[in-house]
Each structure stands twice: as C-alpha cells, then as structure tokens.
C-alpha cells in the first residue's frame, strides 16, 4: 500500500469514462473498465457505480504526452498509464497513454483490462509490488483476460485496506494462484530448457532463468518472456542450430525464435511430424552432438528420437534401456554444456548420453543455484 492508511473512507465508489481510445470499440472499452473494477470488487466489500456525467471518484481518461496533470506521457512504449492514490480532486483518477495500442484481449498490444485493473489498484490505494506475477508489479505482462485470477499478493494488499468480501468469501472462487517456491526440492518442475546460453525452469505460469549476471534464479511470467505461449507446459527444448525454442502442451507445439512466435505455430503434434497416437510429450531435450531431439512420451517411460529437419521419428525405446538406473518416469529433461540431465520428481539424473552412463544423482534444484 502507499502507507499512512491512504485509502477511500467509503465502500461505494463511482467512476466515469471521460473519453475513449480509438483503438477499440466503445463497448469493449466499457466492458474492459467494468471488468477491471470487478477484479477488486470481488475480493473486497467495495462497489463501483458508473456515472455518465459530473465528477466521479475515479475519472478515467485517455490522453497523449502532456495531458494536464504535470506527468506527461512519453509516446509509444515505456509508460502505459498512471493513476493517483485515493483523495479528492485528481485523487483516484486513472490516465491511459493513447500513444499505446490498447486491445480487448490480443497480445499484440496492451490489454486494456489488465492495464486498467493495475491502475485501479493505485486508485484504491495500492503501491507497486515487487512480486513478479502480481497484478501490481510495475511491468506489463500479457495474460489471458478470460482466465485472469487476482494473484495472492494483490488480494492481501487490497484486503489489508478494505477487508474481505463477506458475502463472497471466495469459497466458490478459484483459489488465487500461489507462486511456487522454485527452491523447494519437492516441487516437480514442468519443464527445463536452454535458450541462448541461459537455462529456463518452468512451473505453472512461471519461468525462472539463470544467467551469468545473477546469483539467484530470476522469476518471470512465461507470457512476459514469450507472449502467446501456453502456461503449465509439458515439455520444452531448444534447437540452437535454428535458434528456436519449442514448448509442448497437450497435443500442440509452440515455437519461438528468441521472444517472437514463429509463424505457422502452434501446430498439432502430428503436423510437427510426430505419430498420430501421441496425446502429449512429457519431456524433451535436444542433443547437440547428434542434432537429434529426444521426446519422452507415454508417461515418461518411453522416448523417441526425432529429426527436426526431416520431421521424422527415427527410433523408439524404453527410457530404462538407454538411461541406466532410470526406472521412474521422466518429468523434464535438458542438455547443458555437454551434460544430459533427466528429471524425475524430486531428483535429477546426470548422464553421459554417448555411453548412457549415469554420472550423478542430484536434487532437482541443483542447476538452480538455490
């Protein structure tokens, strides 16, 4: 919060949309704004009523550059919007930079619902959060507005100011997402991959990455790294020869070159060149030596090798046949600096892929530097 108990001293607030952005139809702006208020109303006793004229508690407007409040906007990019903490006059008002491209739900632009929900957090008395993934984190990241659930950090913040919604104590609500603790070795990772020399570890909607610049893994939303990418992925691998990273979820595969989606993806597994019977990929790794991709399937107990250039499957085996000592199902896999790491639950098995020799058994947090 902003501190000093800076909040509205009433539960029923009014808002007015002063003008509209040309980026979206008016009905979509109205809907985005209304749903953004509901994000906060759902978890508190606050109610929001729209006014069409006069002065409302929260005045909402779109403007460019200098727009009359001594905090000019800066053209496209960087600052998207700002809002004022609760007070009379300009207090509570939210301004959106109309040099941005606002959208209803597309990741090609800034989803107005997400930006507005964040700004209304300020309008109600919340400052920025340093929790990546929180709505009040100052950096924009795309997430699907249809499945948006207010993260726990934001719920705690707003309820510290206005209390809980007594009529709707979230019993029937989906639980706000709790950020997984990546250093908890009992946490089963969804996937691990390299990308351009860094390692990326996936769990639910989050990705942690290690690089030489940082001692601790840096957490981000998957969608802030790769807009349009799925969350809770099944598997991932990088092909450094084509500079592409692939994500598997269910029967689909997504491809990204750096942070940009590759045209033509997502594809079905069969379009990718895999057998039609496959419903999902459990883990994946790309072997730099042979250029082959290992895809772990059928509950992580079998694998096939796949030639990405020819889009064909070359071989099919039991995991235990090639990887000595691996009797459990494979949950994630990665090759980094010549070593092959196969994850199974809490543990990670380090192999020499050439000989199939098991080199070490490590806790699954080993590569994270926890």
């Amino acid at each position, binding site marked *: 919060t902003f501190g000093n108990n800076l909040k509205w001293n009433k539960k029923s607030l009014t808002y007015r949309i002063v003008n509209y952005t040309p980026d979206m139809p008016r009905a979509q702006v109205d809907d985005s704004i209304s749903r953004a208020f509901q994000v906060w109303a759902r978890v508190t006793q606050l109610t929001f009523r729209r006014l069409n004229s006069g002065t409302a508690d929260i005045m909402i407007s779109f403007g460019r550059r200098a727009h009359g409040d001594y905090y000019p906007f800066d053209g496209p990019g960087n600052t998207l919007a700002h809002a004022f903490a609760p007070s009379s006059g300009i*207090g509570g008002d939210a301004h959106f930079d109309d040099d*941005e491209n606002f959208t209803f739900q597309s990741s090609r632009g800034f989803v107005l619902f997400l*930006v507005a929900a964040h*700004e209304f957090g300020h309008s109600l008395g919340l400052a920025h959060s340093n929790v990546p993934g929180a709505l009040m984190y100052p950096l*924009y990241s795309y997430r699907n507005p249809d499945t948006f659930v207010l993260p726990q950090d934001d719920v705690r913040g707003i309820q510290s100011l206005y209390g809980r919604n007594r009529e709707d104590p979230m019993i029937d609500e989906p639980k706000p997402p709790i950020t997984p603790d990546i250093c908890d070795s009992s946490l089963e990772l969804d996937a691990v991959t390299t990308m351009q020399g860094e390692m990326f570890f996936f769990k639910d909607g989050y990705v942690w990455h290690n690089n030489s*610049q*940082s001692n601790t893994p840096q957490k981000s939303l998957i969608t802030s790294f790769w807009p349009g990418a799925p969350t809770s992925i099944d598997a991932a691998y990088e092909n450094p020869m084509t500079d592409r990273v692939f994500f598997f979820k269910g029967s689909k595969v997504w491809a990204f070159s750096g942070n940009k989606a590759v045209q033509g993806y997502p594809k079905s597994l069969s379009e990718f060149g895999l057998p039609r019977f496959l419903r999902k990929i459990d883990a994946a790794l790309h072997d730099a030596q042979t250029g082959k991709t290992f895809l772990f399937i059928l509950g992580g107990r079998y694998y096939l090798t796949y030639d990405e250039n020819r889009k064909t499957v070359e071989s099919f085996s039991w995991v235990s046949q090639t990887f000595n000592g691996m009797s459990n199902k494979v949950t994630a896999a990665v090759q980094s600096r010549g070593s092959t790491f196969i994850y199974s639950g809490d543990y990670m098995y380090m192999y020499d892929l050439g000989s199939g020799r098991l080199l070490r058994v490590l806790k699954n947090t080993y590569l994270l530097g926890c």
Partner: protein
Amino acid sequence: PVSKITEEDDIFAEVYLKKFFNLTEEKGPSARRGISPMSKKLSEMQKFFGLRITGTLDADTLEVMKKPRCGVPDEKVARFS
C-alpha cells in the same frame, strides 16, 4: 557478446531513475564524494526488480528499464495524493 552501454542509454537510465526512483540532481562538491546518487538509485531499482545489485548500468538493468510499465514511481516515498 557483451552489450555496450551507450551514452544514449546512460541518459535514458538517468531520466528513468528521475521519473520512477526519485533521482535528484547532484548539488555541490560534497555530493560527489562516496556513492553517487545515480549508483544508489540504480541499486534500489535492481533490488526492487530482483536483478543483480551492481549499482552500475548493465544490459539486464537497461532491458528492464525499457519494458512497458506503469507510470507511477516505484519509490515508496512518492505520493500521488
């Protein structure tokens, strides 16, 4: 390859820190002793975003500065009432 920080990046970073981390102009010779205000504010920013705290402008810090964001300053003392 190591990304080069250009003079333009330095200016961009200074404007960013003034805007969002309440960086104020150095005043007089005494302000030049010890850690520079720019370095102090860079450290604050790096700490907030969970970056490696170096107090210097590096490629990772610059990347975060250039991401689309909300225009309310992150500095806790900034008040908007």
